[in-house]
């Protein structure tokens, strides 16, 4: 059989891709946001229970060490913020093991940026402006939703108060899982399933959707605050276009001890699930200890946005060589 050496994307698409990346750089240059480049390899990795990190062995100045391929440039960029960089952005190669599909590639490009002094609302405004700038003749309205409201209107449930038993039943049925498949699963897994399978496909249709006020348990590296109903929620937003999740933004957590506690919680959960623990990034914690300016940051899957801007059906159509062909 002939070896398939050809690119995943057409050359004409790669030209368009380069043009869009130049637009991104011009967008941030006009706003005085500094472009930075941080390492792909780090001594710490992401403890996030649902991300599988790749790691490699390297001969370093300290001898043989395990180094982690970054799942996003977040930790290094936050260390720059703590060192006084001011607003920064990066087009960063990021790696998530096992993620291959029409919207996923193990190695992908993340557009991540941080805005010291910004509120979440100001960052949402900037992120939606960037998306509109990259999409050809974009005239769609930006529509805001609260997580709770989405579950209420689409599924007629309150995600914060529904009993776990009912939630498991509903998620198994609407998510097309085997009956009883979710019998031991957590609230979060059931909510993730309903969000991914039922709600997401309806978002970003004829509009750019912004989802806010996620459950506090889904805060990751975001702060938590009380919403209008007095419920504790994550200070986090996501953007959706054409049923595709594009970006995830936080009002950033700056409290080092809270951050350490969340990393430890992640590793405890990893142990419970029989997953390997990940080395906690002590340098990030030290940087937070030193002091990171208050502000907001967002990670946007630029490959997906390019895919949508060029009207391509699959992610690999905008990648020079997608993982199956790398």
């Amino acid at each position: 059989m002939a070896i398939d050496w050809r690119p995943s994307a057409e050359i004409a698409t790669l030209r368009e891709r380069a043009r869009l990346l130049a637009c991104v750089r011009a967008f941030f240059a006009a706003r005085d946001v500094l472009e930075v480049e941080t390492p792909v390899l780090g001594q710490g990795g992401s403890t996030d229970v649902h991300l599988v990190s790749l790691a490699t062995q390297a001969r370093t100045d300290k001898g043989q060490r395990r180094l982690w391929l970054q799942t996003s440039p977040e930790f290094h960029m936050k260390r720059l913020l703590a060192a006084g960089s001011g607003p920064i952005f990066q087009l960063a190669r990021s790696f998530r093991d096992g993620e291959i599909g029409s919207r996923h590639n193990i190695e992908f490009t993340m557009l991540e940026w941080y805005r010291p002094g910004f509120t979440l609302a100001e960052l949402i405004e900037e992120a939606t402006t960037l998306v509109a700038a990259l999409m050809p003749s974009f005239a769609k309205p930006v529509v805001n939703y609260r997580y709770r409201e989405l579950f209420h209107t689409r599924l007629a449930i309150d995600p914060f108060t529904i009993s776990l038993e009912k939630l498991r039943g509903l998620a198994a049925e609407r998510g097309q899982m085997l009956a009883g498949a979710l019998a031991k699963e957590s609230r979060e897994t059931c909510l993730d399933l309903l969000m991914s399978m039922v709600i997401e496909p309806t978002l970003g249709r004829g509009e750019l959707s912004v989802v806010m006020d996620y459950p506090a348990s889904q805060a990751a590296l975001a702060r938590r605050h009380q919403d209008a109903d007095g419920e504790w929620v994550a200070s986090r937003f996501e953007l959706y276009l054409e049923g595709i999740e594009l970006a995830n933004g936080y009002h950033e957590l700056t409290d080092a001890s809270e951050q350490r506690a969340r990393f430890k919680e992640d590793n405890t959960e990893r142990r419970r699930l029989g997953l390997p623990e990940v080395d906690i990034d002590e340098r990030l914690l030290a940087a937070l200890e030193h002091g990171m300016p208050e502000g907001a940051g967002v990670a946007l899957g630029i490959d997906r946005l390019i895919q949508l801007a060029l009207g391509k059906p699959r992610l690999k159509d905008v990648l020079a060589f997608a993982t199956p062909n790398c």
Partner: protein
Amino acid sequence: MANYSTNEFKGGLKVMLDGDPCSIVENELVKPGKGQAFNRVKLRNLMTGRVGERTFKSGDSLEGADVMDLEMEYLYTDGDMWHFMKTDGSFEQYAVEKKALGDTEKWLKEQVPYTITLWNDKAISVTPPNFIELEVVETDPGLKGDTAQGGSKPATLSSGAVVRVPLFINQGEVLKIDTRSGEYVSRA
């Protein structure tokens, strides 16, 4: 049988689901940036032929199904069962029920090789070759000279199938038929 995890679900893999053997058609990762990953899997039920979708948590597994495709020649029917023989020289015979035979009943011809799908050594489906040559046993008389014009008429073939054929075809002629579409291809 071995168990297969969602990351091993490839097109064509045979697994057990709800007690029936299924063939995986498509496997798509569904994963929020922050949160549990799932696999949305399209499967063909090999007993019913129906294609359906199921969602699995990434990392979940299914039991493999002992399913294999074998080439066998059609021999005869006794009215209840249809009998086929392996073409590997073993002369081993399998009896197939009407239910497993399905639509293939109308494409049966002796000594033609068919693909028989076996599950736990029992025939569950029969796939005819893509093209088969069959004799016309009944059709209206052919129109002489009409070899290029459009227009068609029904013709009953020796296997019992009725297909649309060009007007110039006569009874007794052998035709090449595409069994997937049930369409006339050419004179054999």
